[in-house]
């Protein structure tokens, strides 16, 4: 790979990850209740279960998208389903960034704000994304987890308030 391509990939990765961090911060600011519910869901359900749910949903959404692209009108339905999956992933990232940030900041042994946690998580994942192949794999795992978190939130949000 030539240096230009490496630079392009690095810049693209940084743009994606920092953009997502900013989006996560904005979501947390504008919809604090949603963010809190997602935080609770991510803490309540195991990492692998969330990953599995996210992975299955992403796979099925992609298959539907691939099948529907053959047909004109039906392609729109596939596109909508796939777009919803992507939006759900971004929503779930709000909790995932915060979770990563919290786990890292616990090492500092000092209480921190949600802002610091989200930023720390975002920066950590951005740096991880720069590791060739392994970093991208970890980032994709986190994305699947995010989708899983949002799916869990859809089904479990009512039970969060039941005593």
């Amino acid at each position, binding site marked *: 790979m030539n240096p230009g391509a490496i630079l392009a990939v690095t810049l693209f990765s940084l743009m994606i990850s920092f953009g997502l961090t900013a989006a996560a911060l904005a979501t947390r600011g504008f919809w604090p209740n949603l963010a809190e*519910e997602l935080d609770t869901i991510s803490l309540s359900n195991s990492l692998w279960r969330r990953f599995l749910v996210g992975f299955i949903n992403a796979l099925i959404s992609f298959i539907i998208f691939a099948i529907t692209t053959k047909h004109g009108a*039906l392609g729109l339905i596939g596109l909508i389903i796939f777009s919803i999956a992507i939006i759900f992933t971004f929503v779930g990232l709000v909790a995932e960034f915060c979770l990563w940030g919290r786990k890292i900041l616990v090492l500092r042994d000092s209480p921190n704000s949600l802002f610091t946690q989200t930023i720390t998580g975002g920066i950590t994942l951005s740096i991880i994304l720069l590791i060739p192949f392994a970093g991208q794999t970890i980032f994709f795992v986190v994305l699947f987890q995010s989708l899983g978190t949002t799916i869990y939130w859809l089904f479990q949000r009512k039970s969060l308030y039941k005593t």
Partner: protein
Amino acid sequence: MNCETALVLIYDLVDGEILPKDEILLKEHLAICQHCQTTLKSIEKAEKIYKHEILVTPAPDSVNTITKQVLENKNVFSLQSKKPYWSTKRIVYYLGTMAASFAAFIYLAGSLIIVNLASKIDLTSAISNTSSSNFNLDMSFSQFIESDLLNLLSTITNNISQSTLLKDLAIILFLVSLQFTISYLFTQNKIKQDNKL
């Protein structure tokens, strides 16, 4: 974790009796809860004051006296019987879930298989072999089956086999149902009381 649970763990933390697992959870909660941070600080402050100003000396033979009293009281050691895991309600719930999942799977898979099979059956040759395709009142049941019903079936299957859109639509419906069923079944674990908002 809610503040009520955190308060119990804060006391354990101050007493140095907290489990490492709980300590991580507590620190996660403290990181986001200003109220509990203040509580921890005030408890730590109070603990320091007590440690430095009040010195408690146990009375001589106090341990022996307490042990003797505990041993004399037989009820101290009777533990509450634990509820068995497999109750009728639980078994019915599991069986019901399994039956519902199985029924859903059969329904979805069956509909998909029927659409696929129907599109593959070629009845045109069968129709061409039949002598009469006109319906009249004198024909027997077998004749009716051979003529009109086969005509009807062949028309439907030809329409289906010509259009891949219908097949794809069936596959998509199946996949969407599968997606929903898997997500629903996975997310049925209950949230711990401590984590409720």
